């Protein structure tokens, strides 16, 4: 068994109202930041999976990403493999 670490990015689906993203955009003028657009605020989950091989590990993460970390009505997800944790 090896430890694999992943990050799951969960973002609001396109076309879904993203109140946080909108709020950030609205506040940008106050910060004197121009030229920023398309702000979307989502979630990032990092986790470590013990598995015999990378494929098995990824399968577990995919299940969690689809069933737990995201709500398919409103969110889409992607998985990224990370370097193993510095400290266990």
């Amino acid at each position, binding site marked *: 068994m090896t430890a694999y670490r992943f990050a799951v990015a969960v973002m609001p689906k396109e076309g879904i109202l993203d*109140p*946080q993203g*909108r*709020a*950030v955009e*609205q*506040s940008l003028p*106050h910060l004197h930041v121009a030229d920023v657009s398309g702000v979307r*605020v989502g979630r990032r989950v990092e986790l470590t999976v013990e598995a015999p091989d990378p494929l098995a590990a990824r399968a577990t993460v995919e299940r969690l990403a689809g069933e737990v970390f995201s709500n398919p009505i409103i969110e889409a997800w992607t998985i990224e493999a990370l370097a193993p944790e510095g*400290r266990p």
Partner: protein
Amino acid sequence: MTIATPAGPLHRALGLTDAELAAIHERLGRDPNDLELAMFSVMWSEHCSYKSSKPLLGTLPTTGEDVVAGPGENAGVIAIGDGLAVAFKLESHNHPSAVEPYQGAATGVGGILRDIFTMGARPIAVLDALKFGDPSAPRTRHLVRGVVRGVGGYGNCVGVPTVGGELVFDASYAENPLVNVMAIGLLEERHLTRAAAPGPGNLAVLYGSTTGRDGIGGASVLASASFDDASAAKRPTVQVGDPFAEKLLIEASLELIGGGLVEGLQDLGAAGITCAVSETADRAGTGIVVDLDAVPRRETGMAPFEVMISESQERMLAIVRPERLAAVLEVCGRWAIPAAVIGRVTDDGLIRVVSGEEELARIPAAALTSEAIVHHRLSSPPARTRSAPAPGAPEEPGDGLPERGMDPGAVLIALIGSANLGSRAWVTTQYDETVGSDTVEAGERSAAVLRIKGTTKALVAATDAQAQVAVHDPYLGAALAVAECARNVAVTGARPLGVTNCLNFGNPERPEAFWRFAESVRGLGDACRALGLPVTGGNVSFYNESPVGAIAPTAQIGVVGLLDDIGLRVGPAFRAAGDLAVLVGEAGPGLAGSAYAALAGLASDDRPPSLDLGREAALQRFLVTAARERLLASAQDVSGGGLAVAAAECTAWSGLGARLQLRVGMAPAVDLFGESPSRVLVTAAPDDWERLAGLAAAHGLPVRRLGTVGGDRLVIELVGDGATGAAEGRGAGVADAVDVAVADLHHAWRYALPRALGEDADAAPLAVEER
């Protein structure tokens, strides 16, 4: 091992003076080792030892027939009949909130709730008293937003309604906001649980969150000087609250207590395990040996001192008989709470810390707690103070009326539309006020009312401070705060039961700051004695200052009262058109410290209004009796903004106007906007006038019909000899009346706060903030 730090000897780096080190040596009969020094440094901190305040706090009246637990316990407890009791306490979380407003406020709520359920009480309400600087300053806005979100984020999640509090803006709090939180719990008296560790051989069980490096606080010098320099900088001193974990702790703790499974219970707050074991052992006259290796940790490589003084949140220490351990672990397991036996009660009076075969520390429990060092600080009044005249002393009315010539209606709109007096809905809508299904009255009313299921009774609670008066006269400020707070409870018809307090002051090592503290304690004690109220607990927060100066001396008061029959409750809003509006009590001179004075930039030559505690006590007795005799349709106390604002609030809450005539005794500004105490604006059915007036007279209280409720305007005509203020400059004989539309008042009041904070009602917060 001795650690030399860049700042000199270790004890100084830990905040202990040379004299304190000598006192430690005296108690141990030897030099402390580094772990012991760390334990002393946190336990002998002002926060844990009350080393500067203890002698004065001892002067407070703390006893009463129904007092079941007073100061010295985690919270005061007062019996309320039917085998029930109420636990309540007020506590500060000022400094953490200044650093990280969301987490500071959130963990403040968590901490005070633990003090309540540690006693065996289910927390049923939270009140938050918040003080900030100028609302237009970006930093203030950031703090307000974070603190309010933090209070709500924690309280809403644990399911305890936040039902009241205070929000005050004053320049003195700009760098040092105050976050004081009061919590109230209800318990069956037979479940009262003490924070003691009786019975040598019993086990010390730590349950709740695991222990991490958070909140190592002042001792972080130790961290940076010791073993792991590289990671020291990354070490968080900020504590992150986990209300979900706290909710599980509440349920599990009440189940443990209900099942009779614990001999003693203590929450872990400041100084973590060190404080919990030494206080519980000292209270029981026992000792505790702590097995360091048994403490469940969140992080690897923690040094012994880090484990012993960590302030990781949401942890409890239970003292358990060995034969009940399995049952205790079962309850914790069911609530998915980590639990571990970390020590054993002994009969040697010592706190010993062991790891394997090695003994790392050995300190008498008393040396850490009841026999901690006490400082008798120097006290001297500042060069300039303005005290109020003694009650009944002859008084030359100086009204210092800068608003002369201004329409009093416009002044009223400005006051009720100001940040300090406008609607608090911007705050209260962020708090769950109704969870628990007991909230009868909450939010911005003078007092919160919570019915007690299964009885006819209700608990009533309020919190107040009078810091703006205390700036001039700290004795008076504290006494006025007690009077106002108890009055706020009494206007509902409830009988005040007891007082809790949180004393927020500057650096006690400065004689002037200490004088303010001493005067406040004196005022607190005198007022409580006069009103027959025991002080059952509280908290002291010193060092509330910044390079710009100290905060206004702030004695925050909390009062809990009992309404025997919820059916007799009197609300503050006008009830019905045609009711009589009546003033009980009368205005006294003095505008200093008032909202009007702040608005008008008044007149430092004026004084604050005086307080007659005998009259105040009579007024409160009158209110309770009048409610019992069902003579009151509504009752509202006269406080911030004076009589005119009190009437405007009754109007804003009800949508009903009124037409009143006010005899001017002093000067229009004083009668309309002065904040002299011991007055209430009540309404009554016209048929009840005679009885009401008779009852007031029997209590020795002046009473006057002001007019009638109804219509869509609030009109206050000024009559009498002194009624020359506003129009005087124009040569008229009678002052202009207040005459404003109810709708205009309501609008000014409703949008005051979002306007002051630069937010429309529905503008979005600036940053991506915590949920």
